[in-house]
Structures are given as C-alpha cells and as structure tokens.
C-alpha cells in the first residue's frame, strides 16, 4: 500500500518545461554542427571521418553525465526518500539510454571505415554496450514493478549499484582488450578541432538538460494523475 502523505510530490503542481530551452538547445546544435563542419580541415589519418567525432564524442559524454545524474539522485532518494528524486533519476535513465544507443550507433559508423569492422571488442565500445545493458535492466525493472514505493526503492538500489560497476566494467574490458585510442584531450587535439568539439558538447548538453526536464515533467504529471485516480477511487466508496 503506497503511503499518501501530504508532503508527496503531487502536493506541488508538476513543473512546466520552458519551450524556449528546447528552441535554444536545438538552435545551438544546428549552429555548432554547421560551424564545426565548415571550419574543420580533414584529419591527416582519418580524412572527413574525423567529423563524426563532433557528434559521437559529445554523445558519449552526455551518456556518462546522464548516468551520473541517475547515480546521484538514486543515492539521494535512498537517503531522503523523496519521490521526486526517484522520478528524476528515472527520467535521466531514459534519456541516457537514448544517448547511449546513439553513441553506439555512431561509433559503429565510425569504426567501419576507420578500423574496417563495424564492431570490435575494445574497451570503450564494450563498456559503453554494457552501460547500455545496465540502463535497459534499470528501465525493465521499473516497467515490471507496479507498487510505486517498491519501484522507487528498488530502482534506486539498482541505479546506485549499477553506477558503481561502470568504472570496474570499463577497467576490466580495458585489460581484456584495448584498441580504442586514449581519451582525446585538448592537448592531443589539433586546435582546429577543439573549438568545434566544445561547441558541440555545450549544444548537446543543452539538449540533454531539455530532454531530462521534459521527461521529468511527464513523470510528475503521470504521478499526479495516478494520485487523482487513487483519491477518486477512495472517495467514491
């Protein structure tokens, strides 16, 4: 029996996500992509393929950022038991899974011409895939549990423990097989590419924030609707 106390999430109306944030985010993506495609010269080794970096690398960063949000809000839920934290973690997980899938697909499109294969069992690729599977497990758990308190507590535990595992997965796969180039950093990146990459990262970050907020708004609305239905069912008797 879920407990319906007065300090529940539904006590405050669900937030509204600003449409402008969405517009700004997508405009930023279009600007950043146009800018970086037009300004960057072809790479010495990879030619035009380097341009895939502008979407692939920021998408990977956003995936990890989303997972960090899941971890932080899962821990916060376990600590404070505030249902909103659970809903936010769930929203970040769904958006993270989208970015994770995108990262994998773009990586494959890059890998085919650069390495000659769609897929290699390399550390970065494999751990990104495992991260995706952990996201899928988290979302499946949420889908299969009906009681909202149970769902919140369990998924918070799964989110926190799953996040602890991600660095270990990465390390183990790295030992097991290593091929992917080391992390690109401003030091190893030609200045001609750095600005483009940063712009794209900022633009995609805005998209990530917009998506998570929008998804959170929907989650809050759905909770409130559930509460209405429950209150109506009880009041009707």
């Amino acid at each position, binding site marked *: 029996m879920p407990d319906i106390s007065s300090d529940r999430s539904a006590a405050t109306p669900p937030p509204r996500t600003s449409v402008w944030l969405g517009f700004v985010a997508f405009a930023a993506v279009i600007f950043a992509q146009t800018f970086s495609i037009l300004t960057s010269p072809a790479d010495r080794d990879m030619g035009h393929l380097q341009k895939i970096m502008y979407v692939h690398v920021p998408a990977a960063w956003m995936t990890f950022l989303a997972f960090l949000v899941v971890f932080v809000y899962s821990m916060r839920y*376990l600590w404070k038991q505030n249902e909103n934290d659970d809903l936010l973690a769930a929203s970040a997980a769904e958006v993270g899974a989208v970015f994770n899938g995108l990262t994998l697909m773009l990586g494959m499109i890059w890998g085919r011409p650069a390495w000659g294969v769609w897929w290699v069992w390399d550390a970065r690729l494999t751990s990104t895939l*495992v991260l995706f*599977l*952990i996201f*899928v*497990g988290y979302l*499946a*758990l949420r889908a*299969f*549990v*009906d*009681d909202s*308190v*149970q769902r*919140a*507590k*369990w998924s*918070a*535990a*799964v989110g*926190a*423990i*799953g996040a*602890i*595992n991600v660095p*270990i*997965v990465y*390390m*183990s*796969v790295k*030992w*097991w097989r290593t091929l992917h180039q080391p992390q690109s950093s401003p030091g190893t990146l030609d200045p001609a590419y750095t600005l483009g990459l940063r712009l794209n990262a900022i633009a995609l970050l805005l998209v990530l924030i917009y998506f998570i907020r929008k998804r959170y708004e929907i989650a809050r609305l759905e909770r409130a609707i559930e509460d209405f239905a429950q209150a109506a069912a009880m009041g009707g008797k």
Partner: protein
Amino acid sequence: MSLRDDWRRTRAIAMKDLTTEIRAKAGFNGVASLAVTILILLGLALGPDAAALRNAAVGAVWLATLFSGVLAFNRSFQVELESGALEPLLLYPGPRWPIFAGKLLGNLIFVGLMVLIVMLVGIVLFGITVPDTWPELLAVVALGVVGLVVLGTFYASMSSRSRAREVLLPLLLFPMLVPVLLAATTASKALLGADLMHEAGAWIRLLIGFDTLFLVATFLAFEHVIEA
C-alpha cells in the same frame, strides 16, 4: 541486538534453506542437471574439433554456471514467498542484514557445489589437463562464485517479487557480472595455458576488489530493498 544474535540468525536461515534443500533434493538435482545439460549442448554446438573445444571450455563452464545459477537465486526467495515466510522474518526485531547473509550463505554452498560438478564434467568432456597451478585456479573459481552469488542473491530479492521474474533477473544480473566473467575466464585460461603474459595475478586482485565492493554495497542496500 548483538552481533552474536545476528550471526545466529544468519546461520539459522542458511541452515533452514539447506535442510529444505537436502530433504527435497529435487531443486539441486534439477539445477545441476540443467548446468550439465547446457555444458553438453555447448560442447555439441562448438563442434567436434578437440583443440577448439579446449579453447572454449572455460567460457562454456562459466556460462553454464551463470545460466543455472539464475534459477537457484530466484528459487531461494520464491520458496520463502510461496510459504509466506518472508513476512514473519521481517517482523522479527533487529537489523535485516542477517536475512541477506543467510540467503547468501545458503546460495554460496548451493552454487559452489554445482560449480564443482560442472567443472568436473567440463574437465572430462572438454579434455582439459589439470595444471600444476590448480590452487590458483580454484581460488579464481571461488572468487568468481562469490561475485556471482552476492549480486545474484541481491537482485533475486527484488526480481523474485516482481512480475516476469524469469526475465528480469538475468537482465539485471548479467551486465553487472561482466567484470566477473572476464576476470574469471581470462584468469582461468591463463592458468590452464602457460600464462605467458602473467595476467592471472592482476585478474585475481580485480576479483577480490569486485567481491569486497559489492558485498559491502549490497549489504548496505538490502535494508531498503527488503522493506519495500
């Protein structure tokens, strides 16, 4: 509540699980037979080439253990739920972790015995020569089983109470076990071969770290999970 009481409860739960298991036997026999069947099927699927089989043996043994282990974990909580015994356990005053520890201990013995059988069958079927480094090999297997059972028991405490538990447990558990699977198979392979790259030691340390980490984390999280 003293630690001694907690330990007594832990032991009581583990003993109870094992006694039911010994009385019935059907559960263990069923799961172990499944593991051996999977091993045989993998042997058939991988073909008759003896050299290829030897290469695949380690992976086959671990996969058979993983797939049949999942059944064991769900069982251990399902028995409790079906007989309605979980509620009284939770009503008992004091911390909840002895329930987890008890289940863990029971599953550890259950899966440990199963792995021994699977390993023996694997050695025979896949034509493995037992190397001089067998104590290290046993250590790898033991550490791998601990990792598998800790996470398996923890996730089963949730999945066994959800819809679609047969699907949910492997979906949650298998991605988490990637480090264990890699460490256990790579280290075993290295120990069975010449270990030219001297990698077994590093993998064993990784397994120790993994086991400690998740043992602590699951004990901390169990309190929240079982109450809900």
